[in-house]
């Protein structure tokens, strides 16, 4: 008896609280920047593609909705030859973002991913790639990696000593 009254009280009390729901789509709710919505591919601070085509997002994906092929550019940079996400399968779990070693793949707060035709939910690289850095403003993978890329030669990455002269006699 007491519990029923208490329940009634709680329900009625909510009549006077402010509603959490909003009049979507006229009104849009606030979504935090780290909200897991539509996936994008970002660029590094120099404007180059961050994705190195390492396949870690694809392997982390529980629904196998990411596929890509790595290719090597003439300057030694690796990137995705094609990069495809099938959003009709994507569950927006964010594992790909967690797996990404270069901060290339990021989830955005955009959740408006509805289409009349399922085929339109297949996003290619041109649809995914944005021109900004996303949530990580100053990370450039190639500044940390040991491989030679474009102008950055051996020993020029962060925390690297210049290459050893193997023909030198010094110990």
């Amino acid at each position, binding site marked *: 008896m007491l519990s029923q009254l208490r329940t009634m009280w709680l329900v009625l009390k909510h009549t006077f609280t402010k509603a959490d729901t909003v009049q979507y789509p006229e009104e849009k709710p606030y979504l935090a920047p780290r909200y897991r919505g539509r996936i994008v591919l970002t660029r590094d601070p120099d404007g180059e593609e961050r994705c190195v085509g390492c396949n870690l997002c694809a392997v982390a994906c529980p629904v*196998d909705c990411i596929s890509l*092929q790595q290719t090597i550019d003439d300057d030694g940079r*690796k990137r995705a030859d094609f990069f495809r996400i099938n959003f009709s399968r994507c569950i927006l779990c964010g594992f790909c973002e967690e797996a990404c070693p270069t901060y290339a793949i990021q989830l955005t707060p955009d959740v408006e991913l509805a289409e009349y035709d399922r085929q339109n939910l297949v996003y290619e690289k041109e649809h995914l790639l944005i021109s900004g850095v996303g949530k990580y403003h100053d990370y450039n993978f190639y500044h940390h990696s040991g*491989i030679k890329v474009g102008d950055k030669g051996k020993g020029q990455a962060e925390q690297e000593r210049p290459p050893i002269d193997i023909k030198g006699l010094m110990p």
Partner: protein
Amino acid sequence: MDDKKGTSSQKVTVYIDDIAYQVNKENNLLAGVLSQKLNLPYFCWHPSMGSVGACRQCAVTQYQDENDTRGRLVMACMTPVSDGMRITLQDKSSAKFREQVIGAMMTNHPHDCPVCAEGGECHLQDMTVMTGHNSRDYQGTKRTFNNQYLGELVGHEMNRCITCYRCTRFYNDYAGGKDFGVYGSKNQVYFGRQKDGTLESEFSGNLVEVCPTGVFTNKLFSAHYTRKWDLQSAPSVCAHCSVGCNTSIGERYGSVRRVMNRYSYDLNGYFLCDRGRYGIGFVNGEQRIKKAKGISQASPEKLTRLDVSKSLAHFRGKRFMGIGSARASLEANFYLKQIVGEENFSAGYSGQQMAVAKAHQQLLNNYFTKDRMLSLREVEQCDFILLIGEDLTKTSPRFALALRQACRNSGIEKAASMGVASWQDSAVRTISGKRNSPFFAMHPTATKLDELTEQHLLLVPDDIEKVMLAITNLLGSDLNEKNSEKHEKQLENYNTEQQLFINKVISELVKAKKPLIVTGDSLLSAKILSATNKLMACLENNPDQKKVNLVVLASASNSIGLLSLIDEKSLSSEQVLAKLSNNEMDGFICLEQELATFTDNELTLLRENAETIIVLDHSESRVSAIADIVLPAAAVSECNGHFVNYQGRIQRFSQVHAPILPILDSWKWLSYVEKSLEFSTTSQSILRKNKAEIIETLDQLHHHFSKHFTSWPVTGNVLLVQNSVARMTQRASGRTSQAANFSVHETKVVQDKDQHYRFSMEGNKPNTVKDMPFTWAPGWNSNQSINHHQVEIQGQLSNYHEDVYLAFQFSNFNHKVEQTSDDTLAGDSPVDKKFTYFPQGSLFQGEWQSALTAEFDLLKYSLEKNPTLYLSTEFSESQGWSQGQWLKVTADNINCIAQLKCDARLPKYLVYGDIYDFINNKSGITVKFSEATEFEVIQQQESRINGYQLAKENQKNILERLKKSDQHIPIRFVAGGLDDA
């Protein structure tokens, strides 16, 4: 030692974490621990190369007895196993030690994993996870190195090195490489060459697998890269020589990506040669035949069965011959022979080759009806080698690597006498020094194995035969009377060098415990094979002689399978031509055969006389260019079948991926041909009689053959796999998106009617069968996970079953050998003053299929090495020529420019060289030479530069095309016949 399973009979009890295990006494503790499928990290130790204790990674705590609680740290790889020994892998101190060792190695390891081709199958990654080292403590700077250019096949990224020394131990110590080394000291140790340049060893590709991390990478794989977990793999057999190494071919998005070693206890063990590893490139080549030629299609979209039978119906009633080939599967060859009838079947061999085949059959008949030829593993145990007329490093490279190991036996024996176990690699090598087991060789050209021989002779085939006859005679007479006078008389026709050779061979052969004679058919000399026959007969009759082992190598992957189908009725290529010109036959069916024995003129003649030429092949050849009908056959990665290796071992290669239609297995094309054409053969009547029997898969074909054909050479079940094993890893990615650009609805996976392996990640685990599509174990992502699937380290695979062998029972036949002009030339006496040229074998160009690989063309035209002609020092001095002189070589109106090198060992009229394109690489041709003009040299160099650029362009185009095709993955539902969508 249980030789069949590779398990030791000498087991002792070792307590690991208080649990008793039976461990092999002859091997070290690390191998013992790993044999129990326990996880213990290691780097420098390798099952085939033994221990050196360089990396300090496999530390375990050893206790004195059960009361000892403190214990002491020992390196498992350097510790012999003793009875009752107690160790632990789990105590804190050794675990901490192992973690710190990794930590130290990682201080300089770059942040490369995302862009490293080794990632996902990296031994260093696996071991780091295994030790629990998960965050970097070191905050200082990393040392870096500049990389070297190591050729078109192997990439170099020296920053990643953890100095385990495995590369140099493999390349220099195990494979006998000369152009690789280790430089520098302490933290600056560098593994590479003295200067940039192509690695010279035939086994350089193994560096990729031997290196625990990504210092050495497969350049071809990196260019069109995918992770190991995404590869769809199937167990295959190398299609490039008669050794039959087991390989695992990986595919992704419809194109073949790479070949990896697949462990085989009997054959290749842990290593492959570069031809086997990189030669797969031909399946992606520009010259692949993808469309049928000469068949009118009703619908432009696809070719149907009806189209094929309609087009072939025109040829009904025509008389066809069939030409089989040594690179086609056993089934296809047998099928063809049955279709056309045995009297119309040819192996595509010339008369000379038929004589060689006959001699080869005789050898197999005489010595291998009960025994089997030695496997590579058994070859490695031999202690005397006589190598006759075969440049193994170029024709069967993996066999040459086995011989190199056999040469070490005398050193290993010496070490054993001093109480040093064979796995103590460094100590054994120090003890043995330059000591080699007795090894003798005879060949017309210098070979890479010469450096290991006690003595080798450079001789033309006829002289080789003469020397062998002398050995035979002396061995025979030794038995009855030890008459030194007679002995000397026997040898008086030989020069001192040859006499020395003969005497040494005899004295060592008699002493040897497990002697081995190796020969082959690459010189196309029946005389050598029959001389071998005589020698063997003589040795068998000698009661004092230990059993002498004989190995006869063949040239192609299925040479022995084809050999088993050759009989007295089989036609030689000359007879094929004669039958056509006499109008006895109307045409022929050419099964994966490029007719290399025909000259261009003969080929034109063939075309003129044949009404119809039907060609089944996977790549364009000179025969497919002139054919009326070309049917696109599947390459080794796209179909199922069996190859028979030099021993007669029947090995199955499995389909890696379903090819794009209308590419089909050769035998499936043959079944269409058989149905549409009429042959008055038994096979067709048998097939027609058993119409109810559906033959859609290779298995059904096999059952049909063994049920109805007494001549089917396979006895025993070669189709043991019934497990439906997954071809993909459990973590294969992209299933719901890889074809989503065409349709968002996922397609059904291709159904393989053979049902041995599945085209998906679903199915039984790879380790439930002997022929694993790929190797993986929990925590072990690299190929070194094979440790978990062996009964014991270096032993048989856990799911081992006995291989099936061909039974060698050939009817003796006399084949008419038409003496060709080449034949007489080879036997020329020096009086004629004709120079006989022998080509040095070529690893990459030596086999037709592998020569189609684009990267091998780059190596062929590479300016690093000029084409060379070797002349005797005596002759070149008499001409006033010195080393480096450019010469013009002429034979049969073909000119070539080559640089002179002098070889003091050469007899005056023997010449050899590595001029690839020179007259189809024919042996024993007469050549003339003169000084080349400067213009000719420049011309030659320009043509090479052009060739190189063309090859480079070709390579680029192929890569572009493959990348495009990655997004157009063919959809097929059934990997069956033409109409199965």
